[in-house]
């Protein structure tokens, strides 16, 4: 997770978020995260695919082989309804946490 290390468990949230936009293959997910984060996060294969496996095992995403934009066979990942619920939940949790951290950081000395 090169440039900036993601907090443990944040990658799952980001993957779910990106997949909520549209079904995507692994490379597309990593590209999208990098792009949407303004090049701050670079997700490498070593963490992305285990994360996808993890999400799949939990039933939050499902995968199927499709033909990619450039006519290659690629495994596309898609959010399940359970995944959508999970995303909403994690999002709320994240907002709670980040708001709390921000409040602490912004307290004037």
């Amino acid at each position: 997770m090169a440039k900036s290390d993601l907090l443990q468990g944040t990658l799952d949230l980001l993957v779910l978020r990106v997949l909520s936009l549209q079904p995507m293959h692994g490379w597309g997910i990593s590209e999208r995260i990098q792009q949407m984060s303004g090049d701050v996060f670079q997700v490498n294969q070593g963490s992305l695919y285990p994360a996808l496996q993890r999400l799949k095992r939990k039933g939050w995403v499902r995968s199927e082989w499709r033909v990619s934009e450039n006519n290659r066979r690629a495994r596309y990942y898609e959010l399940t309804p359970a995944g959508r619920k999970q995303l909403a939940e994690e999002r709320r949790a994240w907002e709670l946490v980040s708001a709390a951290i921000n409040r602490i950081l912004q307290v004037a000395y």
Partner: protein
Amino acid sequence: MVWLHFLAEVFNVLFRKERVERELDEELRFHLEQEIEKNVRAGMGTHPPAGFADVLRQTVWGVDPEQPVPWVRTLDDMRATSISRERLNLLLVGAFGPTALVLALMGVYGLVAYSFSARTQEIGLRLALGAQPTRVLAQFIGQGLRVSVLGVAIRLVLSFLTARGMESVLFGITARDSLSFTVVPGLLLFAALLASFLPALRASRLDPLEALRYE
């Protein structure tokens, strides 16, 4: 019956494992290829070939830091290297051809010019006796052409016999290329015609009186 069931289970696990691995393999390969394609494209757009080597190295090392990248060369570079021998051969053939042509023309010119100077008195006499200058002109040109035609004929036969040996240094045409075998003799004859024309013209314009006194 239990062990059969067990065996089936083992097979199942084995084959499933194989399939999962194969799919993961394909998935990762797709990812890698996309990544490389993207970086190569980005690199090509923004980097001159020289600095591009570093971009490629960084890209490869970004995927696998252990991977050695011994050398990076541009396609132009590789192509130039791969055809350098052919290029040299062609250069030599291309240089020898015109050289041979110039030598041949100098030969024809020299021959006609020499026979002109050797026969100056004779020409002067003929002109004094009323020979037409055009006939003198035709005679000298004819002389040059005769030699050239003979030369071209001999050369044609020789090249036809030795062309096989040239096959390895020729590119794009066969050694017995019909166009070369018809156009080149014509060009040679034409050039010989020009080479003999100059001395012939001089001969036809000779002043009979001076020519008779010429020693």
